[in-house]
């Protein structure tokens, strides 16, 4: 584990909240990104990210210092996201209107509403489309595809995060890739 992370964890355990704030700053983008990709919804991603860091704070004593911190952190994050997905019903779709608004959709909240040049609009649409495709994947494949292709993690690290044998991870990567291919082959 890197020296900075180790120091921040030690300080947090001693009761230094500022050290924990630094730890959150250090890891918030990668945690938020993984969770956002899994749930496909900005507000939910923020809630689950907060929940993740709170769980980390409360369970820091259980963290095994000989293991990589990000592995443990991603495990807490993916568990929290998967829990939420299981409880979620009905499913929220990007094109749904947000309650209490006239015409705001979740999709419109994905990026800022500043005036955008046309190229950027095309890019936004492409981004929403990619996210929609990720959301179509069954959760057990989605998690693995996100960790492998968006976080660029090794199969071994994914097997530690998901607490499953590497052979299972491989099967899911294969099936996840095939599922994506079947949807996208005619593009």
């Amino acid at each position, binding site marked *: 584990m890197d020296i900075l992370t180790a120091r921040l964890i030690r300080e947090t355990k001693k*009761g230094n*909240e500022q050290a*924990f*704030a630094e730890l*959150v*700053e250090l890891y*918030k*983008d990668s*945690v*938020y*990104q993984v969770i*956002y*990709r899994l749930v496909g919804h*900005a507000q939910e991603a*923020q809630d689950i*990210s*907060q929940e993740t*860091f*709170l769980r980390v*704070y*409360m369970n820091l004593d259980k963290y095994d210092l000989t293991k990589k911190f990000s592995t443990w952190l991603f495990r807490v994050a993916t568990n929290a996201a998967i829990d939420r997905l299981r409880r979620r019903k009905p499913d929220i779709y990007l094109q749904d209107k947000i309650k209490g608004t006239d015409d705001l959709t979740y999709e419109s909240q994905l990026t800022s509403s500043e005036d955008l040049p046309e190229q950027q609009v095309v*890019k936004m649409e*492409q*981004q929403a489309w*990619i*996210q929609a*495709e*990720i959301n179509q994947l069954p959760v057990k494949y989605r998690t693995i*595809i996100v960790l492998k*292709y*968006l976080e660029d993690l090794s*199969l071994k690290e994914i097997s530690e995060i998901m607490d499953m044998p590497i052979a299972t991870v*491989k099967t899911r*990567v*294969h099936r996840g*890739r*095939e599922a*994506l*291919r079947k949807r*996208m*082959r005619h*593009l």
Partner: protein
Amino acid sequence: MSTCQFYNEVIHRYLDGEATKEETAAMYQHMSSCAACEQHLKELKKSIAFIQSSSHIEAPANLTACVMSQLPKQKKVSRFKR
């Protein structure tokens, strides 16, 4: 197992970076006469590239502040006890 089924498994090992040199050479050899397998690999590569073209997302600016405002307070209390 048909030849194509066999190579389907090789294709996935290849994409995982786990196919041997020999397997990879045999796979390309097979594809030189099997358009279906060649197409299959092409589509898989395209799907991966599509997923990877998604932009990096940053956490909302107030995330850290929100987390910190929700921390339980007992740690501070224990400091007073000392």
